[in-house]
């Protein structure tokens, strides 16, 4: 349940005399720690109030003021519902004052502490106000307009994008912040893994920042948050800072004004949006299984054939949405690679990005559809040394992982490439901001096994296939009639109609192994074999057939069940005729079916 509590704990350092008084009290009553003191007051916009009464002996300080001595530490136990609340920290302290450490006790719905916040004020020389309030989290705000003067400007959506790694937090503002904002801005963070005692320095990046080193970490450097994960579970919180210093906006046209605030010097490189390099992924399979024994060999080949779309140099390339035909040998003999090639990545120079942001990790998921077997692997994009005499390339390449199943048969390998740590699903963008779909993009490629009896194919995956089929002709017309079938001397000899005959034919036809179909507009197949029986009598009626058939599939099956309606024209040698080679020749027009397609890859099981 979403509850919008806005509670303000105001801790006011009202005056120097009061400070002096407090300092005096502190000396007289050292047990008067403010660690449990907090006044939680609802905001004007809410109807509920929660007061966390002080437990110390510092009674007079309850209402709206508290005195802090330099070095005083306070702690605020509070109930924290990550899904419905936002912690707001407002402060107005001069630079002489430093809030050196903040740690918050944050509890989940079950009142289990998932993080703690503690703050220490030091070097306080003037009256200061430090307020902490709860607010509805940004992830539940929608339809709220943001402005620089709106106290709730913090509703501006800011969320985590990218993959958190150990001891780093990646924070993104998915919408532009005015470059000279003096109002409240807000951010949230989340992560699957946090390091212990992680300190985030808060800074900002100039507008249109392109390079991480352009970000100024000092702008808000006086605020430092010390976040400690106390439990091994994801941390989600949203803070609002009230600050008077200008806040720059880091925008990036490519990322559609996605903005990132640097949280720590160590994560500065993460503050500028970087492309999702999955856009440049492709699967490259060497037709000759003896090639590309190393990534260096592959790199050399790709460098020699840049911008190749169909695959030069005896290899096939599949990019997002493509399907290529492969043999089981190509998979089992490691002839297929997952490649991140700078030649396919537009605009930004991949090498520079890799230098700036380091390698980018992807998960490669391979699934063989006919077996439900799958396997994952990790691909890392990094700069590779270029072969001598070639244009510098940036390539990440790994052998295609293969499920531990038989690589034969007639199946598809479905390959999905995605960021190893994709953005969290709960990411919320500022109203009007357009999330860049590339952040979440995955790339899908299919490899179509050609089957054990496949024949060589060209670089487009086209070739021929040879298979055995059972022709069942519903009706046939023979020119001239076979003398064996003549009932009397008045029977016409120029032609003869027969019904329901069957045989066995070997067929050869052009074949697109990627789509598993005949690519010709009129799907002709050339056939030779025997017609064996007349099913109406039934009677053994052998004849040799050689001809061509136009076959229109009626059953598309992943196995050998593929069948088609067939209209055929054959030269027939009727072996029942006397002297069949001299007198048995006929022209035979058939209409019927070609049942089964034995010993050949047939049709796909799914698209």
């Amino acid at each position, binding site marked *: 349940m979403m509850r919008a509590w806005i509670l303000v704990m105001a801790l006011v350092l009202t005056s120097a005399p009061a400070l002096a008084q407090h300092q005096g009290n502190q000396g007289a009553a050292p047990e008067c720690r403010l660690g449990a003191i907090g006044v939680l007051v609802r905001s004007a916009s809410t109807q509920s109030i929660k007061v966390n009464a002080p437990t110390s002996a510092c009674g007079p300080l309850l209402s709206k003021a508290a005195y802090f001595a330099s070095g005083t530490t306070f702690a605020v136990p509070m109930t924290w519902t990550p899904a419905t609340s936002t912690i707001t920290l407002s402060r107005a302290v001069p630079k002489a004052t430093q809030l050196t450490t903040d740690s918050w006790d944050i509890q989940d719905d079950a009142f289990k502490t998932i993080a703690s916040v503690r703050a220490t004020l030091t070097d306080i020389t003037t009256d200061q106000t430090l307020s902490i309030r709860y607010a509805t989290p940004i992830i539940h705000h929608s339809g709220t307009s943001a402005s620089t003067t709106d106290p709730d400007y913090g509703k501006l959506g800011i969320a985590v994008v990218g993959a958190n790694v150990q001891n780093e937090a990646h924070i993104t503002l998915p919408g532009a912040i005015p470059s000279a904002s003096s109002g409240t801005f807000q951010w949230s963070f989340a992560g699957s893994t946090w390091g212990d005692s992680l300190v985030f320095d808060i800074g900002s990046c100039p507008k249109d920042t392109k390079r991480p080193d352009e970000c100024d970490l000092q702008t808000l450097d006086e605020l430092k948050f010390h976040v400690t994960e106390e439990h091994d579970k994801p941390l989600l919180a949203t803070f609002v800072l009230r600050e008077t210093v200008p806040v720059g906006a880091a925008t990036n046209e490519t990322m559609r004004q996605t903005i990132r605030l640097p949280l720590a010097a160590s994560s500065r490189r993460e503050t500028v949006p970087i492309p999702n390099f999955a856009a440049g992924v492709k699967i490259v399979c060497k037709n000759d299984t003896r090639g590309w024994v190393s990534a260096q060999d592959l790199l050399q080949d790709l460098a020699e054939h840049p911008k190749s779309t169909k695959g030069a140099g005896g290899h096939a390339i599949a990019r997002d949405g493509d399907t290529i035909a492969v043999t089981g*040998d190509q998979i089992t003999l490691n002839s297929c690679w997952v490649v991140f090639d700078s030649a396919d990545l537009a605009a930004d120079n991949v090498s520079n990005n890799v230098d700036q942001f380091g390698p980018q990790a992807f998960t490669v998921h391979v699934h063989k559809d006919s077996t439900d077997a799958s396997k994952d692997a990790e691909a890392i994009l990094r700069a590779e040394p270029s072969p001598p005499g070639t244009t510098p390339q940036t390539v990440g390449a790994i052998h295609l992982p293969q499920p531990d199943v038989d690589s*034969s048969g007639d199946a598809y390998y479905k390959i999905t490439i995605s960021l190893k740590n994709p953005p969290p699903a709960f990411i919320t963008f500022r109203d009007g901001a357009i999330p860049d779909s590339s952040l979440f993009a995955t790339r899908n490629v299919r490899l179509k096994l050609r089957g054990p009896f*496949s024949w060589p194919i060209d670089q487009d995956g086209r070739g021929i296939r040879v298979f*055995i089929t059972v022709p069942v002709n519903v009706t046939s017309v023979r020119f001239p009639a076979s003398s064996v079938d003549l*009932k009397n*001397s008045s029977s016409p000899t120029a032609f003869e109609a027969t019904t329901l005959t069957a045989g066995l034919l070997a067929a050869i036809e052009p074949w697109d192994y990627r789509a598993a179909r005949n690519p010709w507009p009129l799907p002709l197949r050339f056939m030779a*074999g025997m017609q*064996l029986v007349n099913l109406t009598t039934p009677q053994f009626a*052998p004849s040799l057939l050689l001809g061509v058939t136009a076959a229109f599939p009626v059953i598309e099956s992943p196995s050998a069940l593929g069948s088609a309606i067939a209209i055929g024209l054959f030269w027939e040698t009727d072996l029942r005729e006397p002297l069949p080679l001299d*007198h048995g020749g006929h022209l035979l027009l058939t209409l019927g079916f070609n049942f089964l397609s034995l010993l050949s890859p047939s049709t796909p099981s799914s698209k």
Partner: protein
Amino acid sequence: MVRGHLSARTIKLAVLAMAGVASLVAGGSCTPTEGFECGRPLPSDDSVIRSCTRAHELCVCATNSCAVPATDCDSGFRYVGEPFANPDAANGCVAPDVTQWVVAPGQTNACGDTSDAAVQDAAIQEASSDACTNCDGGGGG
């Protein structure tokens, strides 16, 4: 699990070879029939006796061929052309000594079991030589 190219090609060649051999065996093992044979049942339907049904035709049981009256033949009959006459007897004169074993015009009964292979062969041979004489310009129509 791993199968090299050679094994795959071997399988392909083996399949084609098997198909070819099967075709040859099937073709070689098939005993051709004699085509149209009047007075005998239709191979596909024993209840149907193939007959000579055109005008004035009769079935000569010695050759299971149709014949028509011909004044230039000693027997008074000449075999018709293919496919309604034995290829070796077609267009030849019917031997005089086989004209008594015929199926009369307009009848569709079988020739029966009285055929004598020797008589049949002689009749065909005679008709064949007559046909060849005709081919050489010896008449016979």
